[in-house]
């Protein structure tokens, strides 16, 4: 037996050698460092840790196991998914081909590709969300609508920067500040951009307490920020039960492409409110949500292979994502200012910034900034109205973009 030859072969087959011997192997090293940074941000800085830890580890696993030309032991195979999307390939839309050659993370990714995980996450979000503040003040929906400004401005900006229509739509939706919606739309329109878009969306959502307050200060006066809002009316149980049924019926008929997201969001909410499905509500908001989060985060992280991630587009996406978030905040605040003026100063415009979705972080920011200027002010429940309206608004924006570019 040629011991030295065997050892040499083992060495050459190892990932350590692959860093230097394969085409672009050094890029994997950079991606591994990026994964470490993301793990640090998730664990130490607590930036959306439930998602960022999974995304970072998925990124780490795929870049440890996949090298160009050495895909045998890879957990995720980008070339399989390229063939899946290539109309000229014999494996176009062939899940059979994927499954017969897949690594573990390819299997996980099927749930993202089929749009299953984002919809299930939305079901959990629905089961966790109290739409009472929105029902008590339906005008909040206007702030949720105006806070979608960043989606369309970033879409336009992305086209200016040279992205295609579907890519620009996927980048724009980062401004909806809704991770599952961004993942859902990107998977349908520009799956090759999923990694950077998911990272941008979740990172900026975690940074909302830093991004929003200066903008809130800039677009409102001190007098506006001090407005104390009246107690909202009490919402009956019947209203809360009827709400998800009405919203599903109305929004899905209006924009059928929103059906998976809005349908699951409202199904989860019906479980919560109807009073006879407590077990299902509990499962949707805890066990199911946690399981799906693990699969979603790791498989999204796995798409961050060096060849897809390390390029100029990623930098543009990170920049456009930040603009999108900031402009959405401005849109929500302007909506709030208009409502302040039309209501005779009874609505505090700070709650408008919560229209960017990112439940409940954005509403908490409104509360914190409001209390800074008036210690007796409790804006949280008022801000939850535009906040949950933002979830519906971003789903409608995604549905519109999907129906145009899908």
């Amino acid at each position, binding site marked *: 037996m040629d011991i030295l030859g065997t050892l040499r072969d083992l060495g050459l087959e190892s990932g350590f050698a692959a860093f230097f011997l394969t085409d672009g192997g050094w890029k994997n090293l950079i991606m591994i460092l990026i994964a470490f940074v993301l793990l640090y941000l998730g664990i130490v800085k607590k930036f959306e840790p439930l998602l960022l830890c999974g995304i970072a580890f998925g990124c780490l696993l795929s870049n440890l196991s996949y090298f160009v030309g050495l895909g045998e032991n890879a957990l995720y195979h980008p070339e399989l998914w390229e063939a899946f999307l290539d109309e000229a390939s014999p494996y176009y839309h062939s899940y059979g081909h994927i499954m017969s050659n897949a690594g573990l993370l390819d299997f996980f990714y099927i749930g993202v590709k089929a749009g299953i995980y984002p919809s299930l996450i939305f079901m959990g979000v629905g089961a966790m969300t109290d739409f009472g503040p*929105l*029902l008590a003040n*339906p*005008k909040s*929906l*206007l702030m*949720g*609508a*105006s806070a*979608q*400004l960043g*989606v*369309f*401005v970033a*879409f*336009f900006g992305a*086209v*200016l920067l040279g992205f*295609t*229509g*579907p890519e*620009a739509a996927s980048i724009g939706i980062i401004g909806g500040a809704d991770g599952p919606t961004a993942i859902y739309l990107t998977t349908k329109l520009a799956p090759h951009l999923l990694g950077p878009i998911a990272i941008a969306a979740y990172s900026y959502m975690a940074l909302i307490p830093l991004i929003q307050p200066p903008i809130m200060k800039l677009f409102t006066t001190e007098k506006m920020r001090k407005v104390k809002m009246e107690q909202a*009316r009490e919402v*009956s149980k*019947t*209203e809360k039960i*009827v*709400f998800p049924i*009405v*919203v599903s019926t*109305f*929004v899905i008929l*209006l*924009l059928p492409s929103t059906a998976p997201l809005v349908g699951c969001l409202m199904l989860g909410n019906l479980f919560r409110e109807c009073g006879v499905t407590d077990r299902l509500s509990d499962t949707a908001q805890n066990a199911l949500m946690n399981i799906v989060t693990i699969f979603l985060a790791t498989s999204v992280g796995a798409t961050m292979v060096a060849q897809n991630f390390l390029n100029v587009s990623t930098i543009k996406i990170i920049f456009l994502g930040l603009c999108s978030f900031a402009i959405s905040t401005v849109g929500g605040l302007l909506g709030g200012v208009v409502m302040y003026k039309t209501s005779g100063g009874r609505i505090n415009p700070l709650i408008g910034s919560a229209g960017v979705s990112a439940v409940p972080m954005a509403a908490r920011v409104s509360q914190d900034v409001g209390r800074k200027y008036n210690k007796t002010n409790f804006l949280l429940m008022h801000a939850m109205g535009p906040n949950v*309206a933002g979830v*519906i*608004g971003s789903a*409608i*924006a995604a549905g*519109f*973009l999907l129906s*145009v*570019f899908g």
Partner: protein
Amino acid sequence: MDDLVNISIANAGITALLGYVVVFIGLILLMAVMMIMGAIMVSRAKKAAAAAPAAAAVPAAPAAPKAPAPGTAGELKLYDTDPRDAAMVMAIVADTLGKPLNELRFKSIKEVKEDEI
């Protein structure tokens, strides 16, 4: 289709504007639906509230004694004591004794007036 993939700047501008308008229209229509729904619910609640005093005027049959719920230590009787004050008293007693509240049984709480001391 190729027009949409390689979208022109003018078309992108129109699409962005149209998209924003669609979001607004969708949510305004939803707002109208919710306002109608809210108005119906509020008027029903008002009718029910108006009907309630009439029903209360009819003398009700004496209710059967209610059995305490399983796991509870029966009902607490309050004499001249507000339920909030009673809750505070119970919390203070539990804290002073260092015992969890669910391991203590309060049978009655009575306010002792100054002239009764």
